[in-house]
């Protein structure tokens, strides 16, 4: 009974149906005041839908939402926010050209007696807000000039400063560096002390165990577990999410060792790549069947190097050879012809074409091969789409479904299908597992290992050292656009890698390198 009294937000037996999908099936969820509650599940398990039902983006088909004991039905996220439920999304919802202070007080600017914006007071109060949550940023600077992590922190401070009683965080750390995650956790602990209930959605399990007390696990639109997180060991949590047995999950890809034994001939040789800011004289060789990791902090030139190889970044000098042939691609089109493929980091902005169908998205790169005399061969197209949707287990209502409606993991699989159907020689992957859930992540990692085994050369960027070490035969470390280290074999462990990424001595990053954005 006492639990009932302290629930600040309660979802009772909610069902939400979309055409062809039962997104939420009789779901109940309870959040108490002063608790951090993990909401976990695979892609398409219903997490986002549940959040959207709570915040008024969707209306439930059946069931009720109670906020502070009162039944509520918000017509829009704004109404929910005014009532005291703030939501922080993966994407940052700030106005890039306005200052930090203006963004923090957007729509509720302090006024002078004349009704004009009281800029002085606004800046002062903005600075106090940031300080309270331990965020360092110049309140007069336009948001655009801040690092992406700081922007995210400002967005979070903005959301929680609206006198929220419930704060929902959907993958808040996906763009944060490690020290920023610490700041975020400080903010969350402060919120908990203030009596706020926090719903925390993340695919990073370590974070969940660090910050959350309770957990609700969703699978296929149903709640499959609810309880204290500490009582649910990590493997069991994964198994619950996936609906599989623990030993199955424990098996990890053993392809690693087998791959090392096979030394293929070089398939990609990039020499001395130099562009305006990054890369600065980067050379990378990849052999057939090898996975080469590309490590470094944000801004170290990882993505630029990948794009340079793929011809999407103008080069000042440097050569790219595929299979021993000079290709020096000056456009992605040329790179693709020579057997390269590139999966961009920002899936939304650079990868998917959201309004086009799954089919159109899969064949986007393959169009020239599917065409005869300028006409697309429908038969060849449908065969290809069918084959890759099956092979990658892409979950969509039909090939005609707009790709923007799919979950993050399925969108990523569509992107992989786009490239795999080109039968590339070298696959360049920029953060292939970002923003996708544990199940899809495991599938993608498995797939990458298989592809390497089949003789593909892979270049892979991944911010999580653990994942990079797991997947790679060799890791090239970049800093300030240049290669600073290459780790392989026994040297390739987390301590060495993190040390090389941070720069300076492996144990203590005392140098000022890598902290450039703090100033």
């Amino acid at each position, binding site marked *: 009974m006492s639990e009932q009294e302290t629930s600040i937000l309660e979802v009772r037996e909610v069902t939400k149906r979309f055409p062809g999908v039962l997104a939420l099936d009789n779901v109940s969820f309870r959040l108490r005041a002063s608790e951090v509650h993990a909401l976990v599940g695979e892609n398409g398990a219903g997490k986002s839908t549940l959040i959207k039902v709570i915040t008024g983006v969707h209306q439930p*088909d059946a069931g009720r939402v109670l906020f502070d004991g009162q039944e509520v039905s918000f017509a829009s996220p704004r109404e929910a926010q005014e009532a005291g439920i703030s939501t922080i999304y993966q994407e940052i919802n700030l106005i890039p050209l306005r200052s930090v202070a203006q963004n923090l007080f957007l729509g509720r600017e302090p006024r002078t007696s004349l009704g004009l914006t009281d800029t002085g007071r606004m800046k002062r109060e903005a600075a106090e807000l940031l300080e309270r949550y331990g965020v360092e940023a110049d309140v007069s600077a336009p948001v655009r000039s801040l690092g992406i992590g700081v922007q995210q922190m400002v967005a979070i401070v903005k959301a929680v400063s609206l006198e929220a009683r419930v704060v929902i965080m959907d993958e808040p750390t996906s763009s944060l560096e490690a020290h920023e995650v610490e700041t975020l956790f400080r903010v969350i602990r402060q919120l908990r002390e203030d009596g706020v209930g926090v719903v925390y959605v993340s695919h990073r399990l370590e974070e969940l165990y660090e910050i959350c007390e309770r957990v609700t696990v969703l699978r296929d639109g149903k709640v499959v577990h609810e309880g204290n997180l500490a009582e649910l060991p990590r493997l069991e949590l994964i198994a619950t999410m996936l609906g599989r047995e623990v030993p199955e999950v424990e098996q990890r890809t053993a392809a690693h060792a087998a791959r090392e034994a096979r030394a293929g001939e070089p398939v990609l040789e990039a020499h001395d790549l130099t562009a305006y800011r990054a890369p600065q004289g980067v050379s990378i060789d990849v052999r057939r069947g090898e996975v080469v990791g590309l490590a470094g902090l944000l801004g170290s030139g990882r993505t630029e190097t990948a794009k340079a190889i793929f011809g999407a970044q103008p080069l000042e000098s440097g050569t790219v050879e595929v299979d021993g042939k000079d290709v020096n691609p000056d456009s*992605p089109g040329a790179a693709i012809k020579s057997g390269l493929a590139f999966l961009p980091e920002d899936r939304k902005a650079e990868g998917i074409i959201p309004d086009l169908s799954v089919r159109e998205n899969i064949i*986007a790169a393959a169009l020239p091969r599917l*065409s005869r005399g*300028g006409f697309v061969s429908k038969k060849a197209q449908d065969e290809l789409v069918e084959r890759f949707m099956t092979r990658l287990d892409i979950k969509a209502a039909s090939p005609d479904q707009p790709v923007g409606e799919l979950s993050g993991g399925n969108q990523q699989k569509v992107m992989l299908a786009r490239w795999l159907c080109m039968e590339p020689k070298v696959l360049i992957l920029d953060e292939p597992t970002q923003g996708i859930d544990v199940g899809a992540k495991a599938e993608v990692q498995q797939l990458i290992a298989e592809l390497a085994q089949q003789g593909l050369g892979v270049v892979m960027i991944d911010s999580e050292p653990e994942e990079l070490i797991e997947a790679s035969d060799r890791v090239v470390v970049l800093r300030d656009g240049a290669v600073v280290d290459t780790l392989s074999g026994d040297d390739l462990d987390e301590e060495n890698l993190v040390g090389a990424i941070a720069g300076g001595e492996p144990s203590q990053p005392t140098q000022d390198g890598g902290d450039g954005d703090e100033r």
Partner: protein
Amino acid sequence: MSGRTATAGASFDRAAVVSWLRDQGVYVALVLLVLFNLVFTTNFATSGTILGLLSQATPVLLVSLGLALVIGTGGIDLSVGAIMAIASAVVPLYLGYSWPVAVLVALLFCGLAGLLNGFLVAYVGMQPIVATLALFVGGRGFAQVLVDGQLQTISNGSFLSLWRAAPLGIPLPVIIAAVMAVLVGLVVKRTTFGRYVLAVGGNRTASYLSGQPVRGVLLAVYAISGLFAGIAGTLATARLAAGDPSQIGLLIELDAIAAVVIGGTPLTGGRVSIAGTVAGALLMLVISATFVMNNLPPTYAQILKAAIIVLAVYIQQGRRKV
């Protein structure tokens, strides 16, 4: 409780209605309006009236076809009316050589004008509205300079029959427009180029990173738009029996944009409906005709058109909440 469930049901129905209207609304409106006229408007139900109306629609229709492709890439072409004026100025200048030469030279000029637009958008990186505004302003001026600002009357019978001929009783311009509409529809639905247009409009960066020839596609759609404006200008010139760059194609870009948008092609790009565009162009014309033939003030027709445009854009954005 029951009230809330009803709201949920109603909102679902509303979404379905909006989506149905988005896809079918223009056809329904056109059919209803034509039925209305067949019943209530005297002299509407004659083949003469209907074929005459269809002929009248051809310039707007042709311009809209090219424009639909441009809009599909997320762009816009304001210069179509000015390009029609160029065609109208060039045709009489070259009629001395024979009418096919005159038409070809006019189309060449118009295609080049379109290429210029495409170059500014694709290679210089100008925003389409600004790039084509240049030609919108300058094109008509250029056309008038070509003919010294004079109206050039045309008496070449073969050229004039481009408008007047009616094989099997169907006016030639109607046949030309119908063939072109089918061709463009085929291009959008079946060709690689059509897929490129939609991908560029849907997400230009993604299209580029997939190796698609983004710049070439942009160049091509503006050139095609110029070419279609050229055909429209040539037909309008034949209809008027004179080259009149100060009047031909004046403000046609507005009708054409309206036709494309009403037809279900969003200005944001990524989707193109050619059948909808055709229906949109016809709808605009039938609205005007309805008012004229019933002796109602044409100003009210303009107000009705405006309302339909707003409604069409509203329906297309129905899904967006913010």
